[in-house]
């Protein structure tokens, strides 16, 4: 298994997404939960408990799930530790992070037609089915695909530029 620093940082980032999804952005213990998951994962790796490297993601997911469950049990048992612990939120990022993120993407949505934005909102904010959206807007699968991938392409370019910038800062 690749245990180079960039690979570990990548795993840390992925775990952070999972943990935030389940405990919410207001939780002060996110970094501890991520660290604990990583430590357990590497311990298992050292003991050669991960036999099938193709199932690495599923194994790491199981480790992280247990860490989150134990954390929840502990908080429930000892509520005085953090009486202000917020409930999980809707999966959105804190404002500061969003504004920081948006600085780097040159607001690609502004160039989209209002109809395209409405279609994307139905998909990403309301979680509606593609078929349902196509029916509402009387559009074909191919038209839906164009709207979706045209929008994603704008963000993909911005994301690529940001990744490049971050890696040049790291070096």
């Amino acid at each position, binding site marked *: 298994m690749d245990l180079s620093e960039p690979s570990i940082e990548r795993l840390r980032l*992925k775990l952070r997404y999972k943990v935030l999804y389940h405990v919410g952005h207001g939780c002060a213990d996110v970094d501890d939960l991520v660290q604990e998951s990583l430590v357990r994962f590497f311990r298992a790796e050292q003991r050669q408990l991960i036999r099938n490297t193709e199932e690495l993601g599923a194994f790491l997911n199981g480790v992280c799930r247990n860490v989150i469950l134990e954390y929840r049990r502990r908080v429930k048992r000892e509520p005085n530790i953090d009486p202000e612990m917020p409930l999980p939120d809707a999966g959105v990022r804190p404002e500061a992070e969003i504004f920081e993120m948006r600085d780097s993407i040159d607001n690609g949505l502004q160039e989209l037609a209002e109809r395209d934005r409405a279609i994307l909102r139905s998909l990403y904010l309301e979680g509606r089915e593609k078929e349902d959206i196509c029916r509402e807007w009387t559009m074909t699968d191919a038209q839906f695909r164009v709207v979706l991938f045209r929008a994603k392409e704008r963000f993909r370019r911005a994301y690529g530029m940001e990744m490049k910038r971050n890696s040049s800062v790291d070096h």
Partner: protein
Amino acid sequence: MEERMVCKKEAIEREQVIAKYLSRSLDSEAVEEFEGHYLGCDECFDEMRISERLAADLRASNLAWNQNGGVSVLRFKANAELTHSAQELEELRKEVLEQSDTRVIIDLSRVTRIDSAGLGQLMSCYSHLVKNRGALKMLNPAPEIRKLLDMTGLSSLIPTFHDEQEAVSSFKN
């Protein structure tokens, strides 16, 4: 399981899984399956991050104003949450506090969840508008939102309507 081997799926199907994950419409089993996948798959993780940015921008542009009989009506274009961590909350504050018109109706029909932070934000919008010789009315809250507004006494302070024309006319009284 539908989400198995998500990156082997056709691109549009994968995007649907990601979109449902981001909007929290996947069931818990599918969430586990998808997380187990992206923790081991860089490609799907990157796709999810790109989509998350797209969703964040969509959320930020989720508010729209229109005029009705000299009154400004603020609407959400898609379902929205007014909760402590939702971006819509900050957008709502900015929209109401930074515009010059002080006769405002907020259409709550697409608000699916509200918490104390959301109620507090409605309260500060109300205070700001009243201080500036205006008024705030609310339109079409869903039954569960209405219940919360009633329980907290907010609906007795900020008049709530189910008909937009009625809400607009109330400003003339």
